[in-house]
């Protein structure tokens, strides 16, 4: 599904969403109120400049006090890999964007991620993974690193990794594996109206961070929840 199709499915009364240099900002009337939209389109890498444009839009929404939902649409590359970005503090800029989204969530704006294309590494963490709930459309392709690069770093043959990827969700790229890890909460049905599905997600938002519980239930992260609970239990003694 393309961004234009997604926006058409969400905003039957029109919208003000624009895409400039792969950066998405704007909003539209939704369910008797409105929805803010920010994001990355067209497999665009996220660098210092883009991160600050998106964080500006998120902080403006918080400043407005409208408490309207913020939809984070994502079809990005990884973080932009360059000497200039690191020189200027890419870690601060990506973290700032994530903080803006987490602040919005704490300030009464439901934050919903919608991944409909690619995303990877730092760009994925600073956008989609910084929302309260992350939905995906079939065909989305989130990853940490592609298998050829994993092969290079781990010094394992690519064909062996491809074989392992079939049975081991914990390291392999792709939507199914991110769902299994609990990172992606839900996969939407492209055959049903999108606006109703997003409206239902907003209506059923849960407090707290339930990603480790989902990862345990789905088998992609079998031990994380139990480990975190054990640390909390030991910390509570004495």
């Amino acid at each position, binding site marked *: 599904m393309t961004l234009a199709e997604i926006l058409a499915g969400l905003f039957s009364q029109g919208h003000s969403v624009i895409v400039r240099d792969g950066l998405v900002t704007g909003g539209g009337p939704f369910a008797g109120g409105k929805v803010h939209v920010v994001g990355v389109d067209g497999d665009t890498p996220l660098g*210092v*400049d883009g991160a*600050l444009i998106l964080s*500006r839009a998120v*902080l403006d929404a918080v*400043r407005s006090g409208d408490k309207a939902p913020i939809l984070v649409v994502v079809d990005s590359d990884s*973080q932009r*890999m*360059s*000497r*200039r970005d*690191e*020189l*200027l*503090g*890419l*870690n*601060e800029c*990506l*973290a*700032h964007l994530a*903080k*803006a989204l*987490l*602040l919005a969530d*704490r300030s009464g704006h439901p934050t919903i991620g919608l991944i409909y294309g690619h995303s990877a*590494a*730092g760009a994925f*963490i*600073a956008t989609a*993974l*910084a929302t309260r709930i992350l939905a995906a459309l079939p065909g989305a392709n989130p*990853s*940490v*690193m592609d298998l050829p*690069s994993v092969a290079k770093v*781990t010094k394992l043959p690519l064909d062996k990794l491809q074989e*392992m990827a079939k049975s081991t969700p*914990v*390291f392999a790229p792709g939507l199914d594996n991110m769902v299994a*890890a609990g*990172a992606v909460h839900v996969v939407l049905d492209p055959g049903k109206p999108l606006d109703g599905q997003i409206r239902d997600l907003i209506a059923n938002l849960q407090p707290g*961070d339930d*990603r*480790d519980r989902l*990862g345990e239930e789905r088998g*992609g*992260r*079998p*031990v*994380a929840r139990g*480990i*975190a*609970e*054990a*640390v*909390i239990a*030991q*910390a*509570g003694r004495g």
Partner: protein
Amino acid sequence: MAGAHAASTDPDALSWYEATARQRVVALADPGSFEEFLPPTERRMSPHLPLFDLPRAFDDGIVVGRAKLDGKTVLVAAQEGRFMGGAFGEIHGAKLVGLLRAALTLKPAAVLILFDTGGVRLQEANAGETAIAETMRAIVDVRAAGIPVIGLIGGRAGCYGGGGLIAGICSRLAVSEGGRISVSGPEVIETNKGAEEFDSRDRALVWRTMGGKHRRLIGGADAFCADTVSAFRQAALDLIGRAPAFDLDTLEAEQARLESRIARFGDCRDATEIWARLGVNDPESVPAMDTRAFDETVSRVREADHDAR
């Protein structure tokens, strides 16, 4: 274990860069005060590394627990850069997430994170990536509850990838000369964009671009430490006392600070050009400066100190 040796190690003499994670924690804390959660005796080991025929660690490369710092209770996490580059695996990440969640009810004086990490452990990539996202949300919750989260960065693995993003969420950061903070590592940039973009073998370039002195000068870190445990202890105590609030005003100030940085320095090719524009008289001399000379230089740079984090 290393902790037994560390207990008798002099914090003034112990190199942060050379020390193990457990040595750092034990020497950083008030003597005898460190109490570890899920210690190595519990053998909570990665269920995934055997698939890759890789050795495991009894603590999965991170030490978490409770300690006293100047008599006050703090929670501490320390990554072990010598095991899998300190990278975030499933258990490693979950121990940090659990510690931060525990802080919400225990209300310690601070949470200290001793970073030493290359980022996500690729053999457990999805678990590591998700744990980093959980960690960032948990730090925001802890900060919003009024508890400072202080990052200490000076280990041999640096603070890369998702570790760099987590560092950017913390209330305050202390860094030493050996600490490097970055998202993409030098080798990653070179592999993807070529040696013309970044020559990872040019170590001076790596330190200038990602190292502790550059981060301190541009305001990416709040304290610069000599490479000793006692220097990091002193910095932690100082930073706990002046942690910024987590609210809209802080983030608006950070937005302005980062926009201003890009407007002023966005056309610079090298860190030395940025340092010159910051008003450093002899930018070429910065890498060789000792801690005292560097502190004097920092004191004249307006951008270095702020509450916009």
